[in-house]
């Protein structure tokens, strides 16, 4: 067997076409991970810069405030989800979902749906990252490397002779294909491993990513192997394989996506916003009880402090901000759970498409999948709750204003 492999490796070294595909794979892998590493670095720098400027801006805004309500109104707080140490390999949803927000004490639903996204053309085309390379391009390269192993010999009329000399077909084709698959795999993986070292990715994740890629290439190898047993000309084989690739990489995902999105409709985002807006705005004209009653249902602890004497009081103002969120909550929950349901169904369907499966698995490892982005939104909601918990005692107990107290304002800490 070892002798066979060495012989096939020597053959491969003389096969210009195969070397071209392998070289291309190596080059693309280097390009993909370099772009990824640079992008992650860029995002980290952006976050570091934002954290600094945000603190300065807040200090600036708080300076000269004279009451708790004003301080809460003018102080913004940065929240962010830093890219993980594997995000360089799969940017996933980070291109279409926001990963940074500035929030303040006002109704959260008016703030959390803001998307600080980039050039729209970028989100449309998508980027060239390792996940895309591994999921979509690598199978095509594998097909191009393997499809005519048999057929080329057949059209060169050496096929039967070779089989006869080799003893069994397995001994001939298996080492030949194995050498190519392993070479492709290594050339794709080496840049990924290198970048993982640079990015400090944990070994566990690197091993999982490696396993996913091996699994994907094995599946495609199996597909190529089964198709190329058919006694047909190389171009018919290649056409059929490309057709299979199209079906698995484009048609199955696209059709499933359409079906999933019909099955799991989302509440219209505009309605969430409108509902929250109307509630907050109407509050100005409504009797104050219309705000304080639903507010105190959520926060009975402030009942004793909730008497309102003046026409405008900050505690009333922030109470109707919160009531705006409360009224929108059912729609918001529906929106959130529909997104999660879509993601769950997409996860199940992705077993039908190796390309979808690989891309989703990489995004999951990188923490850039839909679930991670929703987890970030949850963290923002959690932080906003902390802000309210910090401010309500100050607003309701009506203690004398003291800037020093605001040094203890909650600070957003990213979870990962």
């Amino acid at each position, binding site marked *: 067997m070892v002798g066979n492999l060495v012989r096939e490796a020597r053959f491969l070294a003389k096969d210009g*076409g195969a070397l071209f595909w392998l070289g291309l794979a190596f080059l*693309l892998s280097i390009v993909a991970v370099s*772009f990824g590493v640079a*992008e992650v670095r860029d995002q980290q720098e*952006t976050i570091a810069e934002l954290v600094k400027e945000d603190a300065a*801006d807040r200090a600036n805004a708080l300076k000269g405030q004279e009451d708790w309500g004003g301080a809460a109104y003018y102080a913004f707080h940065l929240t962010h989800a830093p890219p993980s140490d594997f995000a360089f390999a799969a940017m996933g*949803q980070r291109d*279409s*979902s926001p990963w*940074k927000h500035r929030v303040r004490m006002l109704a959260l639903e008016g703030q959390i749906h803001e*998307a*600080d*996204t*980039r*050039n*729209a*053309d*970028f989100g*449309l*085309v*998508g*980027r*060239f990252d390792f996940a*895309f390379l591994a*999921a*979509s391009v690598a199978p*095509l390269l594998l097909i*191009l490397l393997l499809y005519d192993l048999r057929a*080329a010999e057949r*059209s060169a009329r050496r096929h039967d002779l070779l089989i006869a000399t080799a003893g069994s077909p397995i001994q001939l084709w298996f080492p030949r294909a194995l050498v190519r698959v392993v070479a492709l795999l290594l050339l794709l993986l080496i840049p990924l491993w290198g970048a993982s070292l640079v990015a400090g990715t944990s070994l566990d994740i690197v091993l999982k990513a490696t396993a996913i890629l091996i699994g994907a290439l094995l599946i495609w190898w199996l597909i190529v192997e089964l198709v190329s047993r058919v006694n047909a000309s190389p*171009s*018919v084989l*290649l*056409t059929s394989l*490309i057709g299979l690739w*199209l079906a698995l990489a*484009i*048609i199955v*995902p*696209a059709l*499933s*996506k*359409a079906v999933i*999105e019909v099955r799991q409709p989302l509440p*219209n985002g*505009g309605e969430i*916003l409108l509902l929250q*807006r*109307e509630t907050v705005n109407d509050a100005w004209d409504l009797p104050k009880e219309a705000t304080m009653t639903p507010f105190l249902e959520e926060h009975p602890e402030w009942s004793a402090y909730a008497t309102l004497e*003046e*026409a405008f009081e900050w505690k009333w103002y922030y109470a109707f901000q919160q009531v705006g969120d409360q009224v929108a909550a059912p729609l918001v929950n529906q*929106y959130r759970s529909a997104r999660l349901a*879509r*993601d769950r169904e*997409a996860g199940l369907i*992705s077993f039908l498409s190796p390309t979808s499966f690989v*891309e*989703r698995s990489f995004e999951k490892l990188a923490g850039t999948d*839909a679930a991670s*982005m929703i987890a970030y939104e949850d963290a923002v909601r959690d932080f906003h709750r902390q802000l309210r918990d910090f401010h309500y005692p100050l607003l309701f107990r009506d203690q004398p204003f003291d800037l020093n107290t605001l040094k203890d304002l909650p600070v957003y800490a990213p979870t990962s």
Partner: protein
Amino acid sequence: MSMVFRIAKEEWRLWLRSKVVVMAALIVGTLLAVTSVLTINRVAEEQSQRLAQQVEAEETFFAQPDRHPHRMVHYGHYAFRPPPPLAIFEPGVDAVTGQSIFLEGHRQNTAMFADTKAAADLGGFAALTPASLYQLLLPLLLIVLGHALFLRERESGTLAVILAQGQSGVTLAMGKMAALLAVIIIFMIPLIIVAAYSVSLGESPLGALSLVGGYFAYLCVWGAIVLAASIILKQRAVSLGVLIFMWLFAALIVPRFAINASSAAIDAPGKIESDLVMLSEQRKLGDGHNAADPAFQRLQAEVLEQYDVETIEELPINWRGVVASYSEAELTDLLNGYAENRMSLEASQSRIFDLFGLISPTIAIGSLSRTFAGTDLATHHRFLRESEKLRFDFVQSLNEVHVNELSYADDMNRNADAEAARRAQVNSEAWQVLDEFRFAPDNASERIGRATISLGVLITWLLVSISIVFLAARRVRL
């Protein structure tokens, strides 16, 4: 000429006999039909939904009760971007940008609720549109059909016979080209139907026609590349391999590579980033809610002098309204400066991206298609600008009401008691200042003008690829 026709006919006879080819054509045809119907339905629904939302937003604004005018500034308004007629073929950036924007005083918000954020994630190609089928799948179909156009004659030995009969390589190439052209024309039919339908929805015939023309040129480029490869290369499998590599490169790799490269070449800061930089400048402008802000001292002196009075209480107009109006104008200037800067950076990123069309015709047609359809980045930017104008106009009109129709004394007293609050309201008729907002795409000639670079790139591709076919055909030997 009859020879050319006969060669083309022979080619068609072979294709119709080949199961692979017929299957492939059927699958692509079905896909085109299905995605077209799905996209047309979706876009029609979005169109009517957004128009209804726009009308509803206006009606609720008009129907607001009597109140303090500044409350209406914060009540705000919405702008919706309904998809243009050709979005039924090319939905463009719409899915990424979101389509509604909330407009309010002292702030420029971003468009919200982009579809992609909530989409089921199934990887890179899951968002299938008729346009992406034309861009990605049809070239592949042409490759399958045509990679052996010449090679078959070579392999079966008929090439020798044809040349010996005195036919030149060019005649043969023209025959093959005619056969391929017929295929392309047949596959243009769905697009022509969709384009005609878009005209019935209000698209200008010129816009629809240029979209059809653009895709026809694009498919001809691929047809010529395929034919050239089959003439130049000597083995069927090599020809197919090379063509598939070119497709892989042009359709999958270069566009994504170009995205990474153009975003690396020009750093366009996000909104939060540029907002933070802007905020320190904004602070110098003063807070428009606080008429006593020292930033407004000079304004105060000027206004007092203009009306020849000593104190703001004596002014015939409402000083708080004056401050609100003045600071809104200053702030909007500042905000627009930053917004314009962001948009121009994005536009130059996209220009770099378009230049990559020189190595991938798919990029060129993608840009052309979005521009012709009116679903490109530039149209989105125009939407942002127009909705900003809408915002500024209604906010300033309300501020004018604040200046002229609400006395300073009542305004300052507004929190004293219920009666005082009532006096600090203006009649709801004042809310009629809001303009109707109906976003429409640019007219066709402007869109075509904007597509000059990509159009030039695509025409270059067409000329170069056809020249290569003729050069190669003239040198055909055995």
